[in-house]
């Protein structure tokens, strides 16, 4: 039926509109790269970290920056875009058309995910070129862990858009959720060097498990299945919650 072409038209239009949001694009796409560039220029970050098998701090932070941009896009930028549409009545307006508002949500998730992927590629490239950070030794494992992490973070974002009534509360909730996500992703203290007890807890959170899986893939091992399963389970559960509770108005 024409629904597929209609959905494509929505995604195309949303892509154009997304390109007009320069502020959001900066934070999602350029900020992680800027972060790595700044951190990489700190001399002590080039020293190997004990207990990581010779990785330097900057090497660990490449994965951290990747997860950070992913989290930012998924729990702050994407929900904000959906709240704006909901409050303006855009979703309501689209409910009266054959394509339905789901197309807009899909478009927003796809576009933010695409921006994240672009940001990640940029971080890996800049890290490699400027600071000689390693590229993933297990590309397949990395892509798999990466894809799961992407789905998990966006599922968290989807739950926020579903459960939070308006953008004012949404911004607050996004921020509140964002920092634990960053912590579990290892932004302040890389997961790989966390004390054992803390690490055991963190690796069952979506971002903690994703962070471990990405680090393992960086180091050349195929990620521990346990971590991949944790991320996948989170993604499924959160996604279901979001779909069941989403409100159009």
């Amino acid at each position, binding site marked *: 039926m*024409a629904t597929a072409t209609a959905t494509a038209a929505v995604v195309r239009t949303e892509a154009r509109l997304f390109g007009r949001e320069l502020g959001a694009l900066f934070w999602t796409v350029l900020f992680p790269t800027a972060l790595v560039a700044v951190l990489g220029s700190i001399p002590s970050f080039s020293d190997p970290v004990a207990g990581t098998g010779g990785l330097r701090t900057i090497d660990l932070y490449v994965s951290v920056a990747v997860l950070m941009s992913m989290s930012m896009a998924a729990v702050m930028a994407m929900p904000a875009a959906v709240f704006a549409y909901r409050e303006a*009545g855009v979703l309501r*307006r689209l409910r*009266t*058309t054959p394509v339905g508002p789901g197309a807009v949500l899909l478009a927003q998730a796809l576009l933010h995910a695409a921006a994240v992927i672009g940001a990640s590629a940029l971080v890996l490239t800049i890290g490699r070129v400027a600071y000689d950070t390693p590229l993933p030794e297990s590309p397949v494992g990395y892509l798999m862990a990466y894809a799961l992490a992407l789905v998990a973070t966006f599922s968290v974002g989807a739950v926020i858009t579903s459960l939070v009534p308006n953008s004012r509360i949404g911004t607050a909730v996004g921020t509140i959720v964002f920092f634990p996500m960053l912590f579990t992703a290892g932004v302040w203290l890389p997961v790989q060097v966390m004390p054992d007890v803390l690490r055991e807890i963190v690796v069952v959170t979506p971002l903690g498990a994703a962070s471990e899986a990405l680090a393992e893939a960086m180091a050349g091992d195929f990620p521990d299945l346990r971590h991949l399963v944790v991320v996948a389970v989170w993604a499924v559960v959160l996604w279901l919650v979001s779909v069941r509770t989403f409100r159009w108005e």
Partner: protein
Amino acid sequence: MGSAAVVVDDLRKRYGDKVAVDGISLRVEEGEIFGILGPNGAGKTTTVECVAGLRIGDEGSVRVHGLDPWTDRPALTRILGIQLQESRLQAKITVREALELWTALYDDPVAWPDLAERLGLTELLPQRYAKLSGGQQQRLSIALALVGRPRVVVLDELSTGLDPRARRDVWQLVRDVRAAGTTVLLVTHAMEEAQQLCDRIAIVDRGRIRALDTPTGLVDAAGPATTTTFRPSAPTDLEALRELPGVVSVHADDGRVVVTGADDTVLRLLPVLERQHVVPQSLRVEAGSLDTAYLDLTADPIEETV
């Protein structure tokens, strides 16, 4: 009777304690322009939102060309276009992009440049939605409701924010759309709009249909032969006017006093005003109108003095 485009049967809808729609039944024939007229909060918008499947009634049923909007929205969206109150588009979408997008959503759209021309949007095509005035947004909203060549179109407060000229253009567009076979469900609180456009009008107040007839039928049924309006030069005791023989209703409306009643009402009215030392400015005496019918049927005591 022809075939029904919209059938509403004993629709009821409440929000918490508040009853919005209290048993509305109506049947809109194919190719008809059907008006739902009533004051704010009468249940007009809730009724059409139930017709469009945006809300589900608590009781009763709705059919649009045989489809149940509450269970079969995907099919309904292909045959029903709607212009909603309180819904906006993406702030940074341009008029052209919106028209192109909506065109892509339907199987057999009309050519949007024609619609844009008719609605005076051609110059505005590169403008972003957020930069449009209220009236311009309204015209775009009407275009989007019509671009899918719907069999039924719901227009909710069609002419809000439009200047008189744009209003005339939009009215003509509605007539032309109907001439091309589309059924129009028009929600309005503007008497002139209803009288100009509608084949039949349902007057709705407090969740119920108070009268349903052609505009002429409503006027005839309303009874009072004349409507006398004036702008009082000083506060007027409306109660004294109400007690006059032959007077049917007296109310104040936007600084004017409107008196309806028998043919000799005006003769009895003037001496009373003189005794109250009130000069009736801009005095008009008219034969019964839709206003009379409307005000009789939606009567709510308004202020006692002006």
